[in-house]
């Protein structure tokens, strides 16, 4: 009975946390939108002139329609209000290059990026945590040194360079891996084919974060193992192994989870570069194409939606954090 009650009160607490985080997200989202709006207005010349020139729109009727759509003749505050209103309806404008609404162009490319991010974070988390645990349990041994050296290396190596070097070694020289893309062209696809293409981009993006998590996990494990409750557990007669894996590990994970949440935005940004290296058909490729062709609506749409993605991921991380650490109460 007591167990059931505890579970339902935890669920209630999680719901409360979720609600509070959602409320807190509103000013953040508004801030992102305002920054976006400011960027549009910082553009030299009229945003509209640039856009029509880049997309070779010269038909006066279309220009007039665009002026009206973007409310170029309204006072600034009204333009901002209209912009917010449009975004609320997921109206990010129209991309002439893809000939579809911006939101649709982004939606087509989003799954590939999410897949790459998810696999990279999973790799970084498992490898980083495992390496950190090994280093802390074998502190000041060859294992510890090996983990430190590898972490230093991957923390300093530019991800795009690591990616290119992997292509040289594993794709060009050894022929084990595809050079790029997400599927074999003309192949019959399938999950295995996609996974095969996913290996190198995941390593190139994820190893940098694995290095960070390994270092944080190592020092966190060493710190938690000094805590009183660990001494109590040892004094109860539990084996060192059980104390480490059962008590220390769970608590030592907390700082890693915190960093994971903070870095969600940089992981998304990092995937932009990696996608360019491996011709991965995601948001990064779309962004790169849009930046090169100065397709502003898509660039700004990616900036807003990318920030929303980060906010959502942060809320998810908060819930994981709460699940890991029962001491955290709803304030």
């Amino acid at each position: 009975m007591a167990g059931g009650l505890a579970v339902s009160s935890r669920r209630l607490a999680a719901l409360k946390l979720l609600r509070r985080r959602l409320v807190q997200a509103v000013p953040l989202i508004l801030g992102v939108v305002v920054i976006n709006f400011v960027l549009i207005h910082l553009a030299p010349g009229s945003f509209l002139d640039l856009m029509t020139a880049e997309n070779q729109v010269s038909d006066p009727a279309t220009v007039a329609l665009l002026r009206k759509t973007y409310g170029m003749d309204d006072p600034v505050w009204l333009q901002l209000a209209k912009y917010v209103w449009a975004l609320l309806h997921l109206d990010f404008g129209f991309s002439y290059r893809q000939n579809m609404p911006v939101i649709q162009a982004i939606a087509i490319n989003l799954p590939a990026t999410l897949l790459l991010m998810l696999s990279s974070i999973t790799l970084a988390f498992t490898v980083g945590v495992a390496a950190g645990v090994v280093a802390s349990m074998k502190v000041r041994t060859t294992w510890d040194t090996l983990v430190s050296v590898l972490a230093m290396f991957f923390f300093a190596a530019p991800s795009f360079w690591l990616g290119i070097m992997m292509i040289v070694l594993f794709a060009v020289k050894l022929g084990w891996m595809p050079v790029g893309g997400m599927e074999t062209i003309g192949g019959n696809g399938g999950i295995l084919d996609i996974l095969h293409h996913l290996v190198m981009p995941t390593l190139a993006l994820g190893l940098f974060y694995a290095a960070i998590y390994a270092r944080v996990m190592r020092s966190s494990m060493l710190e938690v193992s000094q805590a009183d409750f660990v001494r109590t557990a040892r004094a109860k007669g539990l084996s060192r192994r059980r104390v480490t894996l059962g008590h220390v590990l769970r608590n030592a994970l907390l700082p890693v989870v915190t960093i994971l949440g903070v870095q969600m935005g940089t992981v998304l940004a990092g995937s932009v570069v990696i996608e360019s290296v491996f011709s991965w058909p995601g948001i990064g490729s779309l962004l790169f194409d849009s930046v090169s062709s100065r397709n502003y609506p898509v660039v700004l749409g990616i900036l807003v939606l990318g920030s929303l993605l980060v906010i959502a991921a942060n809320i998810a991380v908060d819930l994981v954090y709460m699940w890991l650490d029962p001491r955290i109460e709803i304030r």
Partner: protein
Amino acid sequence: MDQSAFLGRFSRNRGALGGAVVILMVASGGLLAPALFPTDPLRIVAAPELWPGQDPALPLGTDSLGRDILAMLVHGARATLLIGLFASAVATIIGVSVGAMAGYFGGWLDEGLMRGAELFQTIPNLIFVLTIVVILGSTLSHIVIAIGIVSWTPIARLTRAEFLALRDREFVQACRAMGMGHGRIILGEILPNALPPVIVLSSLVVAGAILFESAVSFLGLGDPNVASWGRLVGDGRQLIRSAWYISAIPGLAIMVTVLCLNLIGDGLNDALNPKLRDR
């Protein structure tokens, strides 16, 4: 803090010392670039795609156009290091100002400023930099400022924490009792005491900024007039089948430089907090 003890602790850290030596070499190479390689590094000097060691006069070989890779690398060191330093300076100025105000005054100002920091942490950093660059134009100063704008939040958080810890100490209270203004207390009294850990963090931000700039240049979106290391990696990218060394060498230079800057940062950190060293 005792300065000689600090230097002693730093120099006993072999990694940090080695890092400092390498960075000094890279920096002096960059500074002396016009003397070492007085001719334009983008000039064609030999046959294209000479491998390193093939011609003793060109120890690192030539690129796809027959330009001297070593000359480009040394000239690129200048650009890369300067961009890293300036971007870190921008981040430090923003971060220290925001963190000092938030920590010293507290209250709604603190709340507002920290929410702002959270906002800048939410926006995916590279996407933000690319957006600024594409809208305002791809010049060196825009790139430096944009990198500074996405890198200041950790410095602001640290400065805020230092100010929170120091603002109610006796010496600050004494200054207040003497009728000193807020500006003088912040700049003259608290800031000098809060600065050492902030400077350590700034040195790590230099490393981050170099990685950042190299990614922007690698994508071909850097200042077209500046041949930084990231751009050299990007230039060699099309030739990885026949001449992968063209991309490998400048990338190695980025990695070694960033690694050494991180070692220096770690060494400074350990020397500042000797009690934490064995963690």
